[in-house]
């Protein structure tokens, strides 16, 4: 006799999932498959386009983090033309990027990941969303969230020309600078962002860390994986989102490798499975051993948590303090508990806000010298930034006119495809046992595993059109379908 299990779809992540769960004779989980169902083909159709369009075209890979693609593309294009943008240009780009980080992390914590904690995993569905959060924490705080996002978007617009899909980065710098007035305005907004960062961490303290159940949940085994961690660092091995080298630490927190963008292909490879459109990146130096964690598996993770694990500290004081509190609370680096990612994310938010203020305080950011005209013949370039959802790599080759002949992209969430699959399977195994009647809150806890990565399949599916419908199919040992649950959002 086969049990019918109803499961609600994974939502509130910027993308959808298609999960196949197979049960064995005992009705335990035998295997799960997490599939990405679509392919968009940017690598193909960007070929033939002029390279200076990449910051505009690749924006459209992901409307959630277009700024990340805009920056990675701009940096790759700089390298293609062998041009080093003037200091003002670099500062402007990073400033835009910091403002974006604040809005993006805020969006995730309050609208996507946050509700699990603010409302609690077992809160009624209708309330487990941003409106619910606002209702619970109060309109005044809701207003703060909205104000913070607004501030970030205003900066993105001032420097990037548009709120979504910025348009000002070109090989050698930007098409425009900012005025001194704008700088002051941006500085003020930055100060507000810092407050907001501190406030958000306090909220996390009170609601989450103050609640033992949540802390246990975070520290519980369901949400733990021992993998390698990746993140970009500056010359002091402090987290940096815009520029630097990519550092990877092993499950014990020891540096495994630190590579410059141009060497990415020597360190990262992508594994292909026939049952999904998306590829599985892994550490070349370790090799692909399948969906397993541990030191011998090339599977790595690139998330806010990973970035903290991969760095020796934060480059700004307030964030550094939180960084230390984070590890002392959770028992030292590296932290393997995925749910801690939400906390790490807030620490990054604070860092971004502080960096925002730093940059906006330097008058040179409003200087007139925001572009260097490229003079060299274009050839090849790699641009890497830390997207909120993981290390983002753009690699271009062009002909002598700067028209693309080769494009390769390894995108934020993609880095985490393997670990996400593992987390889902682990959660499923923990939850679906011998005919358990699966409850909605319990399933939301599966989703929480998923959601901690803040997976963005707009990004991951850069190679895919849009979002993944979630389809959970549960089958018995004979392969008969016990139930198919389709969710097209």
């Amino acid at each position, binding site marked *: 006799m086969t049990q019918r299990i109803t499961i609600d779809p994974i939502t509130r992540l910027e993308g959808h999932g298609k999960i196949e769960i197979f049960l064995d004779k005992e009705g335990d989980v035998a295997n799960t498959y997490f599939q990405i169902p679509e392919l968009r083909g940017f690598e193909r*159709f960007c070929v033939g386009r002029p390279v200076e369009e990449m910051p505009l075209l690749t924006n459209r890979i992901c409307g959630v983090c277009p700024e990340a693609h805009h920056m990675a593309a701009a940096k790759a294009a700089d390298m293609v033309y062998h041009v080093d943008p003037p200091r003002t240009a670099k500062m402007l780009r990073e400033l835009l990027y910091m403002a974006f980080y604040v809005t993006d992390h805020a969006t995730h914590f309050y609208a996507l990941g946050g509700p699990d904690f603010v409302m609690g995993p077992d809160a009624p569905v209708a309330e487990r969303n941003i409106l619910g959060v606002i209702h619970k924490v109060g309109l005044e705080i809701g207003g703060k969230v909205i104000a913070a996002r607004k501030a970030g978007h205003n900066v993105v617009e001032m420097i990037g020309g548009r709120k979504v899909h910025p348009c000002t980065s070109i090989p050698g710098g930007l098409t425009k600078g900012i005025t001194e007035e704008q700088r002051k305005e941006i500085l003020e907004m930055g100060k507000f962002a810092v407050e907001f960062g501190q406030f958000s961490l306090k909220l996390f303290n009170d609601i989450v860390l103050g609640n033992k159940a949540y802390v246990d949940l975070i520290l519980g085994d369901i949400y733990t994986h021992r993998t390698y961690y990746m993140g970009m660092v500056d010359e002091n091995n402090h987290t940096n989102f815009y520029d630097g080298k990519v550092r990877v630490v092993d499950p014990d927190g020891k540096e495994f490798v630190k590579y410059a963008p141009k060497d990415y292909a020597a360190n990262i490879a992508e594994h292909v499975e026939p049952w999904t459109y998306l590829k599985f990146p892994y550490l070349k130096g370790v090799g692909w051993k399948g969906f397993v964690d541990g030191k011998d598996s090339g599977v790595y993770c690139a998330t806010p948590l990973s970035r903290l694990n991969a760095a020796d500290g934060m480059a700004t004081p307030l964030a550094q303090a939180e960084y230390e509190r984070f590890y002392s609370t959770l028992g030292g680096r590296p932290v393997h508990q995925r749910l801690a990612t939400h906390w790490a994310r807030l620490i990054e938010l604070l860092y971004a806000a502080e960096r925002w203020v730093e940059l906006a305080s330097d008058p040179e950011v409003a200087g007139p010298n925001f572009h260097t005209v490229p003079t060299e013949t274009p050839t090849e370039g790699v641009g890497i930034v830390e997207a909120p959802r993981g290390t983002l790599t753009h690699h271009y080759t062009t002909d002598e006119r700067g028209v693309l002949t080769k494009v390769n992209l390894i995108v934020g969430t993609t880095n985490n495809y393997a670990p996400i699959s593992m987390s889902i399977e682990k959660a499923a195994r923990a939850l679906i046992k011998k005919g358990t009647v699966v409850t909605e809150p319990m399933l939301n806890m599966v989703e929480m595993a998923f959601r901690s990565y803040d997976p963005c399949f707009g990004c991951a599916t850069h190679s895919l059109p849009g979002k993944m419908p979630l389809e959970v199919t549960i089958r018995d040992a004979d392969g008969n379908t016990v139930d198919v649950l389709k969710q097209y959002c």
Partner: protein
Amino acid sequence: MSDKPKFAMYWAASCGGCEIAVLNIHEKILDVDANFDVVFWPVAMDAKYKDVEAMEDGSILLTLFNGGIRNDENEHIAKLLRRKSKILVAFGSCANEGCIPGLANLSSTNEIFDTYYETVSTDNPAHIRPQYRYQMPEGEIQIPVMYPVLKTLDQVVDVDYYMPGCPPESHQIAAVIDLVVQVLQGKAELPPKGTVIGAGGSTVCDECNRKRNVKTITSFKRIFGQPIDPELCLLEQGIPCNGIATRSGCNARCPTAGAQCIGCYGPAEGVVDYGARLITGFASVIESKDPDQIDAILDGIPDPTGQFYRFNLAGSLLKAGKPAWKRNGGNGNK
């Protein structure tokens, strides 16, 4: 359930920028909450697909549909929402004209696979390609079938209104929400079916403050190749700015920011083929009567096809629908 009119927003093959643009109306989002019962909005709230199926046809008042139609699942839900919605709005460039992902219509499915699964960083000695149906030890699993071309929403279902932009500008979204709210309160009328909403009736130049003269083009230049005069029309500086043919409504954001318009708002009112308008606009004012010289000048546009159809390819005369479908590996008789 409240008796407020029902609102839904869905993303098919899109980047999510449209959702963000909607979130970016900031306080206005509370108006949506106040005036609508949001029944379906994947990015912002939990939702049950089966609930949507269970709804009466036409019971959703307003659905903003963004994203293009890349596979059978996209088309399936497009049809479902069409059935359930009184007003279906093609929201954003993807749903309107295919947007950047529509550039995929230049290549066949296999060409896309052969590129993506063989990149420099890909470890694929067996040249594995995704299988729509695949036999695992535990049983067969499937992934949706990718269409040979990306289609626009009105190529698969009947569309009531079109709202262009990549993404639509937040102030335009806010304006449309105001309008709908006013209609709900009986203070305003809905525009006729098929109307383009949340945009202007002219082209970007209409909102662009750059100085303009009688146009003649002696050469085309790349945006990064030289200093740009911040005052003068970009096209007159030789920068192939698409503003002349692109629908107004964005406040000429890109030209104002010193970047050429790339055309995300699509064709102006009543235009049949967006690219054709640009071709004729650019070509008509080339300053030469000599074929060779004309060619030399046109060499300044390294990628005419991308230049003229960047956002519009899936909605263009030549690359839309059946023929391209066939050419890209689909069965032309479909």
